[in-house]
């Protein structure tokens, strides 16, 4: 175990100090920052927080009720998106205020508004998009002023369809809300991020093994550690790297949600939330998936002679892992169909399928437990297989990978090292 740990430490440090790792580490936060930053800038450009006036000739706003805040607008005054509505007795007063730039625009509610619905908007430069939205909410609630204020506000707030699973069923208490529907897609996004990370990390591992073969370093390594210690250490190191990235991304996202939502007033960030149970389930599936794929990639690296051949062989694993994405519509529409359940139980497709199903509906506990058990067993088997591949393939130089080698390796028929690498 000590030697595996040494190998793990080395692989971790080696990868973590590479520019490509730092780029991947920073790429997601940078991308998110860019998207959110652009959103904030666009919102600022579209909105104008300067006060807006109104002249109520119809007498509907004599004793006005404040409009309810929309989901996208912050509660506190003085923050982006919220404008102050100032009443004026005459159009002349309003026009003077406009010309002196005390207000950005003013509305004139016609005397016969109840018959004509006429409201004039007067401005020098077009007001921000938030102005109209807020004024019409204001008008609507005051048209309902005969109702109790809380009912009027609720009527103006409109509908929000929420689907909630019963508490007494697996995954019970989960909600699928119209206004927070983005939250339900977060597991899918998280699943995709984990799978991309999985490919990057395990691809790196495969490359390392091929290089070790090319450099003959493998021959020195196996005179110091056993193939199983070597592969175990390498897989541990890669998992460490992947976890570092995941944790860094989660911490960054949490900071973005906290700062962006609470301080910068970005509306959709304030409502962003992932069910911790869903997140934990995904992480629980991601870890054995990493071990399994990394070990399989390392096996390929040990058996082939060139990096290019190794890349081509990875298609063997890439195809099934991406298969659920081709069947996305089917899985989302019928999350409990035999196809969805089958893909959930199959180790290579479990992580991605589960990320879809968890997004749509609760997944029965027995399916999660069985799938995870199968995945862990396969991960252990993959490490065992990788140990064999190292043993038999490490001094196999200059030969292409043959299907029968893979079959023989998997069935244990490969009782002897493969020919090759005979020097003297």
């Amino acid at each position: 175990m000590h030697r595996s740990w040494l190998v793990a430490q080395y692989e971790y440090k080696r990868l973590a100090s590479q520019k490509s790792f730092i780029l991947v580490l920073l790429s997601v936060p940078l991308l998110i920052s860019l998207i959110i930053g652009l959103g904030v800038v666009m919102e600022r450009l579209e909105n104008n927080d300067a006060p807006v006036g109104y002249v109520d000739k119809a007498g509907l706003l004599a004793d006005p009720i404040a409009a309810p805040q929309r989901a996208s607008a912050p509660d506190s005054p003085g923050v982006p998106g919220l404008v102050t509505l100032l009443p004026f007795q005459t159009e002349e007063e309003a026009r003077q205020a406009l010309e002196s730039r005390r207000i950005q625009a003013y509305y004139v509610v016609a005397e016969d508004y109840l018959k004509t619905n006429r409201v004039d908007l007067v401005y020098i430069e077009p007001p921000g998009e938030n102005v109209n939205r807020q004024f019409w909410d204001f008008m609507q609630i005051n048209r309902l002023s005969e109702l109790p204020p809380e009912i009027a506000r609720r009527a103006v707030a409109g509908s929000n369809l929420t689907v909630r699973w019963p508490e007494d069923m697996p995954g019970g208490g989960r909600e699928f809300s119209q206004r927070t529907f983005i939250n339900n897609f977060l597991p899918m996004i998280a699943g995709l991020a984990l799978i991309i990370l999985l490919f990057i990390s395990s691809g790196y591992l495969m490359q390392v093994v091929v290089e070790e073969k090319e450099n003959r370093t493998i021959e020195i390594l196996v005179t110091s550690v056993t193939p199983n210690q070597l592969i175990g250490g390498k897989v541990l190191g890669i998992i460490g790297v992947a976890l570092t990235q995941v944790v860094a991304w989660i911490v960054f996202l949490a900071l973005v949600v906290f700062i962006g939502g609470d301080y910068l007033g970005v509306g959709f960030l304030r409502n962003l939330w992932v069910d911790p149970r869903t997140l934990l389930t995904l992480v629980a599936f991601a870890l054995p998936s990493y071990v399994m794929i990394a070990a399989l990639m390392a096996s390929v690296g040990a058996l082939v002679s060139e990096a290019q051949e190794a890349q081509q062989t990875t298609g063997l694993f890439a195809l099934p892992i991406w298969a659920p994405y081709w069947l996305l519509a089917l899985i989302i529409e019928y999350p409990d169909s035999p196809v969805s359940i089958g893909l959930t139980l199959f180790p290579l497709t479990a992580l991605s399928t589960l990320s879809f199903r968890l997004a749509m509906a609760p997944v029965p506990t027995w399916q999660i437990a069985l799938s995870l058990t199968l995945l862990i067993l396969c991960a252990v088997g993959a490490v065992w297989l990788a140990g064999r591949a190292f043993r038999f393939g490490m001094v196999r130089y200059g030969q292409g990978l043959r299907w029968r080698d893979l079959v023989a390796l998997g069935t244990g028929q490969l009782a002897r090292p493969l020919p090759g690498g005979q020097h003297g």
Partner: protein
Amino acid sequence: MQTVEVSHIVKSFGTTQAVADVSFSIERGEIFGLLGPNGAGKTTTIRIMLDIFKPDQGTVSILGGPLTEDKKERIGYMPEERGLYQDIPLERCLLYLASLKGLSPAEARQRLKGYLERFDLAQHKNKKVKELSKGMQQKAQLISTILHGPELIIVDEPFAALDPINVQLVKDLMRELRIQGTTIIMSTHQMHQVEELCDRIVLINKGRNLLYGALNDIRRRYASHAVVVRADGELPPVAGVAEVVPHNGDVKLVLREETTPQDVLRALVAQGAPVERFEIAMPTLDEIFIRAVGEGGA
């Protein structure tokens, strides 16, 4: 106790027999030459000794028994060509490989410092291995092999890519290690280095022992019935000499079967010949190699 005992090992890959029957034993503190032409089975034999391959038949005893994980720390192996990580700094690479051999980081650093200075690599320790010349990489690889103080060292072509100064450095190091009791197995095609360093050799060809034993015994066995003489002037005719052949500026006297070298020396002295050098004509290891392999392959 023998440090290494290889007994009748056989190894085949599919239909190719890499090792047909190889046996030898090596004692503690000797430098042993594992020789043979290309494809003779040397590397396969080394890999069997290191438990990278399992033999189909035969047994290998290393440091008193089968090779175990603990014993790996007591062995240093330098494969032919490369063997180091190319994309990381030299010092980091060597420290990592030393840690796998059970050396503590502090001890490894301390020892490495000395070796890097001795091999004139100290100023290159932060360079990536691939940025070093072939000769530097070869020296670095040798350091990696001996850094953990192994009892048994197996080196494949240790002098490859080294200039004469560094060849001498490596030879001195090997002699030093032998004095300290380290057993060294050296596989090389540079026969003059073997002549200088090795106590005993095994020459294998087509996977079988061809010659095995003490180097001097083998040379004597292959010595022709002749003497090499250098004289200040022309040599007088000597009875019992069948043929006189020029030999690198000297003269080689091929003797008749019944004549001994002592007879010739006495005859030369009796005739007052100005003899400066007189020795039994011993074949070089190169000559023995070519002859043995030629005869073995015939």
